[in-house]
């Protein structure tokens, strides 16, 4: 069954003053199955964030519609959790309070929401940092918190917009493993945007490739690697073959846009 249906969703940003409107996204159609992990891969500026923000309800589509469990999306809501590329923890709240933010908005009692938040802090490896403020944490830890904050809300789908884009390679690899581990345990529906080919393959069961700006869906490739996936899988023959194929797809697009 489809968790999320994107039906002919496109975006045209109105120009300022005399300037022409910009086409950020060509109408795209995409179905995401329940408990699936799909990555959206494309060169920067192709409209990946725009698509994800439309799904989140933070941006309105110029055409088409998004359905979650068959119901049209009209605005942002707790059923679609999001993790941003920029660090968006609330600086005035501690780590545990950040994770519990969504539950507080929903009116969950304090002891109960702190219990849930503590469990998630542990899941993402933040035990011992519960009472720190965000600025006391490294970028990687802040993104762990952001993931825990989105998941503590128990959303129907988790949206991630290049969440590890600003991290160094080692941290990024660890974060990918952590997220994949959570997905394997919790069976969540995930939509993950990235411009990194290896990242796109490693976590996904499906990679959706987008063309250069204005973006349209160019390819939709299944990743049939077994689970659980250790990081060593990145050197396996099947992984490397897939990577070569996707690098080829993306290269053509980067050349078109750069």
């Amino acid at each position: 069954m489809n968790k999320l249906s994107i039906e002919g969703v496109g975006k045209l940003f109105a120009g300022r003053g005399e300037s022409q409107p910009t086409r950020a996204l060509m109408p795209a159609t995409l179905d995401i199955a329940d408990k699936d992990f799909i990555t959206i891969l494309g060169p920067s500026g192709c409209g990946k964030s725009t698509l994800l923000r439309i799904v989140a309800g933070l941006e309105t589509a110029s055409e088409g519609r998004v359905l979650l469990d068959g119901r049209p999306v009209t605005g942002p809501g707790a059923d679609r959790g999001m993790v941003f590329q920029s660090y968006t923890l609330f600086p005035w709240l501690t780590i545990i309070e950040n994770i519990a933010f969504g539950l507080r908005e929903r009116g969950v009692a304090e002891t109960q929401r702190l219990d849930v938040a503590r469990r998630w802090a542990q899941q993402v490896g933040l035990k011992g940092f519960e009472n720190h403020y965000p600025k006391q944490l490294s970028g990687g830890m802040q993104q762990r918190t952001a993931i825990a904050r989105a998941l503590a809300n128990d959303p129907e789908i988790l949206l991630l917009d290049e969440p590890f884009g600003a991290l160094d390679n080692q941290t990024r690899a660890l974060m990918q493993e952590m997220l994949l581990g959570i997905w394997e345990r919790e069976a969540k529906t995930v939509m993950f945007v990235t411009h990194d080919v290896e990242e796109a393959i490693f976590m996904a069961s499906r990679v959706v490739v987008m063309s250069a700006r204005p973006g349209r869906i160019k390819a939709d490739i299944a990743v049939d690697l077994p689970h659980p996936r250790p990081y060593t899988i990145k050197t396996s023959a099947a992984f490397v073959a897939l990577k070569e194929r996707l690098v080829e797809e993306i290269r053509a697009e980067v050349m078109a846009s750069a």
Partner: protein
Amino acid sequence: MKPLQPVSAPARVSYGVGFFALFVAVWAVATLGGFVPKLFLASPITMVEEGWALMTVHGFAYDIGITIWRVVGGFVLAAAIALPLGIMMGAYKPVEAFFEPFVSFARYLPASAFIPLLILWAGIGETQKLLVIFIGSFFQLVLMIAVAVGGVRRDLVDAAYTLGSSDRSVVARVLLPNAAPEIAEILRMVLGWAWTYVIVAELIGSSSGIGHMITDSQALLNTGQIIFGIIVIGLIGLISDFLFKWANQRLFPWASA
């Protein structure tokens, strides 16, 4: 000296105290050395003597109390109205569009120029003093608070919405806590300005307060008392500034660098 190289805490204190000492030294040399006529500028020693007399004989402590009361009263009144209005303006753009042009204009109206008008309307009692402080600080507060509230990072608001926040809750749980340290800083600054207005208000048509004492002393050509009054104002400002900074650090530990 290397640019931006920090100084240690003890060095910082000794530099700060050092300049005060230098200032008093230059003043002492200029007056006690006879370089400046006594009529125009009292020496530090005369100033201290006059100050002592003011406190013990003339009941100057009462004037200080009255002045503090006026500043705090007018300022609290202004803040009590400026806070909700500034927050509404920062959060809701139509509200801002409605009030902002007028407030921007009113901010440039000099509070001291209103004094004759206020005397006409409210007499020379306490109401008039409070109104001067109010006019002097209210418009500044509103504008600066609106900017602080509206200056929230867009992605923090987006994050709150994806966590299920309602519009009201975004204001109460994101915009407000986000702006709180800056608002506290604005209150500290504008309170400092309120001090200049109160003295001006007391210079004209007043029978008590630090400003009134200064006008009286001018008539008697007592520069020692005038300087003592000015120094008292400076000291009170310094203390209130220090208290504000201390409270802000306690209240907003997440904001300090």
